[in-house]
């Protein structure tokens, strides 16, 4: 099964949900079900597949790395309010948000907006 490696960073407090670890290096399938269901891979069955994208990545992180309180990370099929997602130092909004197709070696950052001062 083809996979890709990614560098994942959490910040602004989000790292608390991920074992208090800011940096993670992960390997995920290069092709995934269109539904972004994380329990299957296209090889498993005849599910329609797509190149892996950020939407799938979010569910994969929730199901594989998140230690607690999933609702503080993903909500309504996207990151919960107050979280900004970056793709190689670029706002994901400029890259297609959840539909951005991940490439091997990409760095994806999930950061919560700070408001203290």
């Amino acid at each position: 099964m083809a996979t890709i490696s990614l560098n994942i960073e959490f910040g602004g407090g989000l790292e608390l949900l991920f074992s208090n670890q800011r940096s993670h290096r992960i390997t995920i399938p290069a092709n995934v079900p269109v539904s972004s269901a994380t329990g299957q891979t296209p090889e498993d069955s005849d599910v329609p597949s797509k190149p892996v994208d950020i939407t799938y990545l979010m569910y994969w992180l929730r199901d594989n790395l998140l230690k607690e309180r999933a609702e503080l990370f993903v909500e309504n099929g996207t990151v919960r309010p107050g979280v900004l997602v970056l793709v190689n130092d670029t706002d994901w909004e400029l890259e297609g948000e959840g539909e951005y197709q991940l490439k091997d070696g990409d760095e994806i950052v999930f950061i919560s907006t700070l408001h203290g001062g």
Partner: protein
Amino acid sequence: MPASPFVEPTPQLSLEDYRRYGRQMILDGFGLGGQIKLHQASVVVVGAGGLGCPALQYLAAAGIGTIGIVDHDTVEMSNLQRQVLHTEARVGVPKALSAAEAIKQLNSRVKVNPVTDALTAANALELLAPYDLILDCTDNLPTRYLLSDTAVRLGKPLVSGAAQQFEGQLCTYNLPLKSDPAGSAEEPGKGPCFRCLFPKPPAPEMAGSCEELGVLGAVTGVIGNLQALEAVKILTGLYDGKPSLLMFSALGMPPFRSVKLRSRRAACPACGVEGEKVGKIEETDYVAFCGGERPDWVARGLVEG
């Protein structure tokens, strides 16, 4: 450059100003013109705390003509770990007055307008309208949304800083974009506002405060300092005309990261051109928008306790 005996200094700048600001006036791209721009500019700093103190120091030192300071709090001992304009002797004094006193000692030529009232949806437009540029040095989410909406309504840039624990963030909302050097016929627009990035506020339980989470003093110093720097760059035209976010992680390597940000969203409720718009600022309940009261917001006077 000091005035020669045969040339009168520009009426706005005195000979003493040349002496004081000489080190920046000789900078390529800055010059006398830049100093005059600062002299004629007005900046309002909302929050005279961890971010506001370093920002105010460097705005005053640089020679901004008029500086407003909005803060309804009084100086407490726990502030002195990072709020470097205040002193032990001024514990109990309203912060806006304490900060004003400090910067007048550094630069008596700056006109300082301290405001000891809380900034609210009812008074924000009136309090901030007289200024060219706004600094968000506050510490809570409802005020940040209020400031962003107000900046958009008033057409002013909002240099926003935030700091918590070991991290900081810096972004200028409603940034005046720069013309396409290729000479596009269109007027350059504005960058995104806070709502363009975060149309829905995070749930209250995600929103920690420095009181609960803590913050390292020098982290607020770095961000506040950078806010003053951004303000000076914008006022003198020396800024990058593209919207970006600076992220700082004091314990990280590398510690700084610059992020290219989205454009203004056409459907943004505050600054967009389409779709539903937010109601009048004066009628908006920002606390409710952010999910209701939190204990420290009561203490902060954001809501009736």
